[in-house]
């Protein structure tokens, strides 16, 4: 009889403690819940047509210019020859812009911190100098700003890079971008996510 009572008592105790223990368990070990993560996807990437521009310290009124060395269409690699610019102080100064849409469907904020040239095109690499910029317009005056920390992409939000706003600025480009060309770039996010994008060159 006593044994039965003890058995019953233990069972009852277990019955009472079990839910408490379970409750306790979930609260005391928060590591069980998944950490918030960002989930980045990129769409609608495109690039503007852009000219590779060689530096040029020539050029005030009265000077004549030989058209031929400037003609980049047929011989892009043969520009050094007799171009007055090459020995001058002007570095290559062609710029380009890349635009795309970043969607963060995760539940953690993220930030685009770096864009880099993947150098996968047969046409050769494009640019070693790539920055994130934002254009703003106040009373008709355009001001461009370099974004030192990056482009924030908060959890659950979509950020548009578009003309007159956020954009990737390519500098000292090493080849001209003609409509139809394709540019491959890598995007690095604060979370560690890396995305590869291909942007087609088109005239908006």
């Amino acid at each position, binding site marked *: 009889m006593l044994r039965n009572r003890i058995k019953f008592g233990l069972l009852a105790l277990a019955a009472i403690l079990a839910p408490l223990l379970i409750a306790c368990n979930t609260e005391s070990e928060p590591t069980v819940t998944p950490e918030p993560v960002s989930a980045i996807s990129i769409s609608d990437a495109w690039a503007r047509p852009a000219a590779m521009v060689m530096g*040029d310290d020539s050029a005030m009124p009265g000077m004549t210019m030989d058209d031929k060395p400037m003609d*980049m269409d047929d011989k892009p690699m043969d520009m050094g020859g007799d171009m007055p610019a090459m020995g001058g102080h002007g570095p290559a100064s062609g710029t380009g812009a890349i635009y795309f849409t970043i969607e963060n469907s995760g539940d953690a904020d993220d930030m685009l911190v770096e864009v880099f040239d993947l150098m996968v095109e047969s046409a050769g690499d494009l640019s070693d100098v790539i920055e994130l910029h934002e254009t703003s317009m106040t009373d008709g005056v355009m001001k461009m700003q370099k974004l030192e920390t990056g482009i924030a992409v908060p959890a659950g939000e979509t950020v548009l890079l578009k003309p*007159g706003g956020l954009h990737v600025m390519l500098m000292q480009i090493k080849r001209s971008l003609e409509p139809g060309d394709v540019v491959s770039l890598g995007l690095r996010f604060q979370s560690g996510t890396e995305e590869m994008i291909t942007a087609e060159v088109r005239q908006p």
Partner: protein
Amino acid sequence: MNLPQLSLSNMGSSRRNSKLLALMISVAIAIAFSCTEAPYEFSGAVSDPPQVIGDFVLTDQYGDAFTMSSDANDVSIVFFGYTLCPDVCPTTLADMIKAKRALGEDAERVSFIWVTVDPERDTPGVLKQRIEVFDPEFIGLSGSRETLTKVWDDFGIFVERDDSQNSAAGYLVSHTANLYLVDNMRSKVVFPFGTHSDSIAADIKAVLNSQEEN
């Protein structure tokens, strides 16, 4: 066609007839109004009075002198920008190209001019390379800062060198990004950044048409 009979004798006698008369009068007024052409409404901001632009001589992308007053075309579309600018300037240039296309044959009567706001870096050779990507028929103008400052002032262009950005581009240039329609050395219509190219083309056509009437 059977029009209702309206004569002085039965006009007052019938309520129905007077209603009809009122209707016919209002139709007549509506027709009369639609016949007199409504004045064209510009999409851009019309400068009233037009801003007088002093004559200037700058250097085009081929290294030749360009005198604004000797420009043979009927109308000029003038834009201010710099080649290092990757975003707003190409957007505006693309709008100019689209407006030019929308003009069709009338485009031959229009000069499309880009005046630099960065003369130290935008030499004619640099402008030439950049313009060729857009439209080789465009005119790219550079010159001494002194000459350019006068041109900027005449158009009311704000230009400010910005060294604070720590960009690999070196300094950036903040500048007014409007398009200006110049007719006979007068800036008549101003298009803010983002004006649709079709609207720009329509405004240009309206100015060209008004020149033909005069």
